[in-house]
């Protein structure tokens, strides 16, 4: 193997300095220590770690978990409170329900509270679906939520349609019952819908803010009573019940996804987060501020309208703020993250360049010296970058035999390259020890923890006699080519690391003078691709039969057949008996 002349640390290296190179845990009679390939630990490199600003955008995970738990508890409290209301503890209140607008006047309390029950069921179903994997529950929860929200919106439209009456006539009465039901329905449906879509948390929270603000108005009305805001809700007892439920659920949805919504945005250290932290409270307090001034204005008949306008303006501003803040923050974060990633990549490249260069040099080796009567040729074209999962080797051993191995590890980059080199060397060393190609392949076992898969083809040649043995582990066929012959050779055997009990066929044959064995990886030719009924390996065989020659020409012909800009590595190995 090779030695490193200076410490290196890759971008993949952990903060502790431990390098996870994913080296194969190959269990064979042969020992190969991964630490020989790359130092296991490299001290003194921590200062080059680049912090990602994006990591600061979320809130503390522990706090997030606690807030989420609190959110669930609050939502559960809302459900419990709703159930108490449904059980009739507040039922006597409905004895004096004022008549609503004509459209909803016929709607009895039973119908209204059935819808409340629907909302509660939706909320419960939603909470259950978060912990349940049952698809039916999720669908049921969503359907209930949509039904609830639709009803709530229907009432809102009616409510707003009749709002002008309030402003135009000081004696008009609005249906507090309808208002209460609406708030409950929206307050319960919105959190459920929000909880289903991670990407819409912010929008959902703004929706919850709407419910929250309306509840605030109702509370103000309850506190003030007649003659100001309370005029909107002549039966404050009902509204308070509904408000409590809606307020709790709205608060619950704020907390249930703290890391994805406005809390996360507000906790952002960037400019957008500061903006929200400084102006958000002002926006939230705006209704109360306006009410304070409105109360001191003699024309108090307009107070109700002002309260609603204030809430509406506050919400619009808040929504705009949230959108702007998010855009500002995300842009800043993305820019900073990109810069950090670029810096990391630069450092990584600088550190790894010598290693990668050295790896590329040892991926394909030919160590045959002067071998009378034989010639070899190797060609390699990487799929992307400079190192990949193909490795090949041709070696002459002390007993005079030639060992040839071509290995293709699935994947790309430094790790597969190291793994391919290891497997190739293990195979060649097994041949050197006297194992047949099939036995050598069978010696390589896998470790279950590794997600590695490889194809390989191995040959053992006796130069004096021309006898050849071939074993294959799920590799594309080799080609036996000569002036009069072009046959595909495909010994049976599964991919390496697939099954520890795999068995491999050991195919024996003779090479006559002028004949060659051609090995190639699937980046060169794939059995899946065909033309005019001939697979790519068969087409190459035809080509070599017609135009083949010495080893170098044969290798060039095969590589010339392959895609010049491959996505996968291309390796060609030719061993030819010249005379």
């Amino acid at each position: 193997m090779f030695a490193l002349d200076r410490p290196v640390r890759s971008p993949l290296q952990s903060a502790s300095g431990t390098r996870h190179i994913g080296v194969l845990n190959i269990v064979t009679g042969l020992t190969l220590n991964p630490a020989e390939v790359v130092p296991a630990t490299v001290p003194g490199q921590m200062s080059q770690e680049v912090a990602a600003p994006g990591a600061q955008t979320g809130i503390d995970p522990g706090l997030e978990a606690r807030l989420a738990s609190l959110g669930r508890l609050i939502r559960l409290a809302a459900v419990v409170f709703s159930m108490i209301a449904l059980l009739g503890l507040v039922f006597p209140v409905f004895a004096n329900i004022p008549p609503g607008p004509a459209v909803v006047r016929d709607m009895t309390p039973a119908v209204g509270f059935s819808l409340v029950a629907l909302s509660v069921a939706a909320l419960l179903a939603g909470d259950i679906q978060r912990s349940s994997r049952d698809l039916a529950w999720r669908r049921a929860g969503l359907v209930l939520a949509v039904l609830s929200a639709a009803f709530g919106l229907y009432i809102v439209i009616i409510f707003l349609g009749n709002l002008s009456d309030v402003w135009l006539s000081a004696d008009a009465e609005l249906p507090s019952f309808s208002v209460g039901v609406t708030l409950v329905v929206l307050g319960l449906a919105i959190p459920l819908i929000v909880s289903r879509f991670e990407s819409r948390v912010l929008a959902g929270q703004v929706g919850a803010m709407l419910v929250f603000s309306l509840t605030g108005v109702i509370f103000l009305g309850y506190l003030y009573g007649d003659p100001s805001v309370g005029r909107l809700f002549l039966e404050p007892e009902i509204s308070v019940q509904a408000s409590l439920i809606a307020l709790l659920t709205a608060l619950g949805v704020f907390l249930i996804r703290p890391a994805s919504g406005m809390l996360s945005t507000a906790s952002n250290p960037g400019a957008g987060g500061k903006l929200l932290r400084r102006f958000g409270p002002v926006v939230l307090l705006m209704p109360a501020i306006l009410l304070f001034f409105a109360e001191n204005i003699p024309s108090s008949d307009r107070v109700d309208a002002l309260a609603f306008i204030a809430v509406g303006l506050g919400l619009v501003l808040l929504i705009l703020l949230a959108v702007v803040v998010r855009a500002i923050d995300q842009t800043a974060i993305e820019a900073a993250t990109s810069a950090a990633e670029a810096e990391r990549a630069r450092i990584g490249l600088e550190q790894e360049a010598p290693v990668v260069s050295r790896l590329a040099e040892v991926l394909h080796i030919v160590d045959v010296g002067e071998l009378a009567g034989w010639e070899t040729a190797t060609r390699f074209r990487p799929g992307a970058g400079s190192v990949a999962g193909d490795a090949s080797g041709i070696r002459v051993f002390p007993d005079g035999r030639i060992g040839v191995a071509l290995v293709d590890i699935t994947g790309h980059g430094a790790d597969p390259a190291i793994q391919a080199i290891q497997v190739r060397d293990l195979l060649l060393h097994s041949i050197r020890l006297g194992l047949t190609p099939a036995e050598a392949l069978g010696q390589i076992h896998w470790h279950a923890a590794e997600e590695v898969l490889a194809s390989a083809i191995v040959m053992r040649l006796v130069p004096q006699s021309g006898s050849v043995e071939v074993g294959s582990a799920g590799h594309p066929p080799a080609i036996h080519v000569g002036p009069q012959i072009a046959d595909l050779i495909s010994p049976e055997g599964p991919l390496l690391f697939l099954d520890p009990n795999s068995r491999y066929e050991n195919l024996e044959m003779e090479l006559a003078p002028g004949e060659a064995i051609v090995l190639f990886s699937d980046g060169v030719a794939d059995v899946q691709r065909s033309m005019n009924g001939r697979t790519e390996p068969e087409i190459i065989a035809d080509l070599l039969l017609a135009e083949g020659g010495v080893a170098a020409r044969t290798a060039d012909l095969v590589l010339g057949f392959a895609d010049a800009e491959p996505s996968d590595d291309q390796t060609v190995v030719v061993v030819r008996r010249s005379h």
Partner: protein
Amino acid sequence: MSGIVIERSQLNDGWLTFEVKGEIDLATVGDLESAIDEVLANGEQGLVVDLNSSSFMDSTGLKALVMADRRFGEAGRGFAVAISSGPISRLIDLSGVRGSLRVVESSADIH
């Protein structure tokens, strides 16, 4: 380089089918792996990846299927590949994974 399309459908007994259309290679295998990860994270009893509408699969796709088979097996859930004939079937034969994976001709053969 074209992408892949994965059409999901539910089978009986909680099994899910992925009908994969397009070429599965280094550029597209991530989509397949992500989809498989989603199924692993959910509660389906098993998954059958139907490759009868796929035109090509390279070794990265093969690896994704083998690793998925191991993970489903470790989770005590079912995993199968549906392929009847054609280029991908040749790859499965050549690579020798037919003995390791549960290979059926179509997703209808699961039960």
